[in-house]
């Protein structure tokens, strides 16, 4: 199991031995609300919005703005970070197969979709104060909430974006259409 808080500290616990396996960061400062942390496929790594900087309380609500992949054994960062958000990340979601990453920032007013392997920013949608987001079980749809209304918004991810993440499935659907 792993736990993280405030975007400043990430811990991995051995549940059987009930001992701390590893930690990145020390906590302190940080954001509210928290973003989730995820194991990737085969549990080799962990994805989290994270800030390595010690930030005083006055500025801590501005970060973390960056998403990292951490090796689950060494807790070293893996590959390049996901950079693009300018202010704190409030929502994070990973597709069932870890191919698509989605993130929100309520202060930079965007929802961003990323290709996980390449770290490529696929699209950035302008949305007013998106708070949290989740992906549907098949990862073709996203749902998000906003700070200023008690509403849940559901959107289909555009087909051209899906095709860039799952090209094989797009091809097979064309074949079915022709048949």
């Amino acid at each position, binding site marked *: 199991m792993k736990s993280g808080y405030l975007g400043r500290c990430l811990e991995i616990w051995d*549940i059987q031995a009930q001992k701390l396996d590893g930690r990145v960061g020390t906590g302190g400062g940080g954001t509210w609300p928290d973003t989730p942390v995820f194991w990737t496929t085969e549990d080799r790594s962990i994805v989290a919005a994270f800030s390595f900087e010690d930030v005083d309380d006055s500025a801590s609500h501005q970060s973390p703005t960056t998403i990292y992949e951490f090796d689950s054994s060494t807790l070293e960062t893996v590959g390049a970070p996901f950079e693009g958000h300018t202010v704190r990340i409030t929502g994070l979601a990973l597709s069932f197969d870890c191919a698509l990453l989605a993130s929100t920032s309520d202060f930079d007013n965007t929802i961003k979709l990323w290709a996980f392997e390449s770290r490529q920013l696929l699209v950035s949608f302008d949305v007013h104060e998106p708070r949290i987001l989740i992906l549907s079980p098949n990862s073709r749809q996203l749902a998000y909430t906003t700070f200023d209304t008690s509403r849940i918004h559901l959107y289909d991810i555009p087909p051209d974006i899906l095709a860039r993440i799952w090209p094989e499935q797009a091809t097979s659907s064309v074949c079915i259409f022709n048949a």
Partner: protein
Amino acid sequence: MAPGSTWSAATANKLVDVMTLGGEQRTNDKEEESDFQSISYFLDGKKMIGGLTNNSFRGWDLQTGEEIVKARFVCEQEVRAVAVSSDSQRVITGGGDWNNLGELKAYEVETGTMKTFDGHSDTVDCIDISVDNKLLASGSHDHTARIWDLNTAKLVAGPFECGDGYVGAVDSRKIRRSLQ
């Protein structure tokens, strides 16, 4: 990455609006004021639940966009986290109010029967259910993460003391394997 190159091409895309759930007008009346702090799909993608700051959670049929009236429950404290078991049998809620004991509960979807998981001493902010629906992980403002048996509501492992901050996120994907 240099944000410039992909940015302009990327912003041409538009999200395709499917539906909006909820939408009561906010007022100055505290009773009416509510935010969704956590939302979750059912595994078939056809239903959704959302936990609210007004001590309740609600469910929707995503094929009709209508609220499932029998899936509206009132809790004692703010609902901060919701999760649905992958067999769609249970809805788990975590929450709490400032300066109050946390609340962690499991509701049977069909019968409305509710179980309480006692142990946390402050707001429960995050929950996760194991892949086999047998275990529940929770993280709290009381600086601990705990693992529970979802059937008996008994503590299985922990509390794991997580420094002097609070636990904002747990992911239980490895739980089943590590406890076997």
